[in-house]
């Protein structure tokens, strides 16, 4: 589904839009205002992390200060070749690149897999800050506790269909909701 939102594949049925624009036809203007972290981060083995981050942020949107801020936050050494990074570090490269982009919508696919608990916390901190600035964060996750902590609205997808949608606050019990909707 995320690949449809990115205009990389076309849906067999139905349509999707971001900013009121068609995700396939208008992908270029949409992508100028969007940042993405893939579920499985594959990088160029001979590029350094810093090079990939600059490449993904893009020449026009490059802001060294913002990049350095997120490098510090996630404690990532950008001078290493990507092939020497662990899974968690590759994830961090994609996260730093995404958060350092001046985007309005962030699409994050299982972004904390491979991160240690401290980094997971930093990630939530970054998400909350972005949300506080009025941005939209689209998070796909299997970790209910994480969703409970950072999400304001949750949809459960089953076999390609939205099964349930729920606005949550600190009182909602996501787990109960999840099992009741039978969306395992």
């Amino acid at each position, binding site marked *: 589904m995320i690949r449809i939102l990115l205009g990389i594949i076309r849906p067999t049925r139905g349509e999707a839009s971001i900013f009121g624009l068609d995700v396939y036809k208008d992908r270029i203007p949409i992508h100028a205002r969007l940042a993405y972290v893939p579920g499985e981060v594959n990088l160029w083995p001979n590029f350094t992390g810093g090079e990939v981050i600059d490449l993904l942020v893009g020449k026009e949107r490059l802001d060294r200060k913002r990049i350095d801020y997120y490098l510090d936050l996630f404690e990532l050494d950008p001078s*290493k070749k990507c092939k020497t990074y662990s899974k968690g570090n590759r994830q961090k490269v994609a996260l730093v690149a995404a958060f350092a982009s001046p985007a309005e919508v962030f699409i994050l696919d299982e972004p904390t897999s491979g991160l240690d608990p401290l980094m997971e916390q930093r990630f939530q901190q970054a998400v909350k800050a972005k949300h506080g600035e009025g941005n939209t964060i689209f998070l796909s996750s299997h970790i209910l506790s994480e969703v409970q902590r950072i999400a304001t609205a949750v949809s459960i997808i089953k076999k390609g269909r939205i099964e349930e949608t729920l606005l949550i606050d600190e009182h909602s019990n996501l787990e109960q909701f999840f099992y009741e909707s039978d969306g395992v």
Partner: protein
Amino acid sequence: MNRYLLFITRRERIVTPLWILSIFSSLLFFTVLYPTLIPTAEEALALARTMQNPAMVAMMGPIYGIDAISQAIVMSQETLLWYLIAIALMNIFLITRHTRTDEELGRVELLLAQPIASKTPAIAPIIFALIVNIIIAFFSACGLLIVNLEGTTLCGALAFGAAMGVVGFFFAALTLLLAQLFATTTGVVTAGLSFLGGSYILRAFGDLQESSLSLYSPFGLALKVQAFYTNDLWPIGIILLPAVALIGLALLFNHVRDHGGGIIPQRAGRAHAPKSLLSPLGFAWRLSRGVMIAWGSALFILGLSYGSVIGELDTFVQSNELMKAIILQGGPNTLEDGYVALIFAIMAMVAGIPVMLSALRIRGEELRGRSELIFAQPTNRIGVYLPFLLIAFIESILMTVLLALGLVLGSANILALGEMICYGFAYLPAIWLLGGIATFLVGVLPSLTSLIWLLFASSFIITYVKQITQVPSWLSALNPFELIPRVPIEPFKAKPLVALTIMVALLVGGGLYRYERRDLD
């Protein structure tokens, strides 16, 4: 230690036997060619004389034993160096695999948690390499004795095999040391290959000047064995001494250094991308430059070596009717023109390989799961793909020019550069067609992109076979290179070239159009 050796043997049960088998079978294959290549002593002498020209000496080592020339001597002089390089490569990779790579991937750590001595992971691979090199030396000597060329002696075969084994062991020892010095696999392999290249070049200069420079190169030393002539064994001893010293030093460093680290501190890479990387063209260049540089130098060197025999073409072909027929192609041509036409017909295809690789690279990005990252950017797909095609186009021209330049320099300016470049450029449309078909496949039939290699391989085989026998015309029609007039032995015709170029434009256009629109994997 025994169990560790068995463990390595088990992990190597496929790769090492494959290396041994390919070295052994190529040795057999090339050795059995000699009775047909130089059936008589005069022909052996003629060939040996051709080998005396500087370009050949630089490439294959000095000729020896002119006064007692035999098939075995010529074979050894022409081929031993290549086996030495092959066995050196095998040892560099073998030792790296079991030392630095294992350490980098954390496997050594796992093993060190077992009750083994801390130096075992360094010693066991070198013992394994020693055994493998002895096996190769033994097999090679046996192979030579089995083929039994004219002039083969037991001592000669043993000296030939020993030279291979000892050079292999030297490079194993060297790599063991490098694995202690550098903290990454790439670092170790790069240093090993640089040393190999340096040794080859040092030997080339030494052999050209007939100076003692060659004695500082393991290759130069090993060739001093002069198999089937003097069968000297002192070079073997001289190579063994530093090999043992290298191992001693490696074990010492292994003892002092930290696990996971190297003696030489790691250089940090760039923390930021250079400006050039951030444009689509810079990005494409960064991904393509390695192949481009490697292929360009390979074509230049091939050009040099093919060019170097131009002057001796007459002596070379005099005694060999088959070769003469192949070169002349039954026409009233000069030998030189026939030879040049043949070289271009075959080398133009080799020059097409990097062009296809560049046109296919964007598909590789897709298969390695990186196109999601690229196309989540505000760029259209054509904008990313076009720079790769531009690079493919530049490569087609650059490869041709480098080949022509190599030919001219190798021939010591017997050939004219302008003419050679023109002959080469006649093949450009066929090279572009390969790139065009690749682009079309990437856009329209992405799951079948490997078809391009099938097409290329069949074209190559058709071109090759056609030199020797007739090929049915329907089969020839499958080969785009057939449409090119075989300059300079055929007159230049513009029509097929224009037709090919139009076809390329259509294929590239169609491929790009679909690539912009299709679903990406």
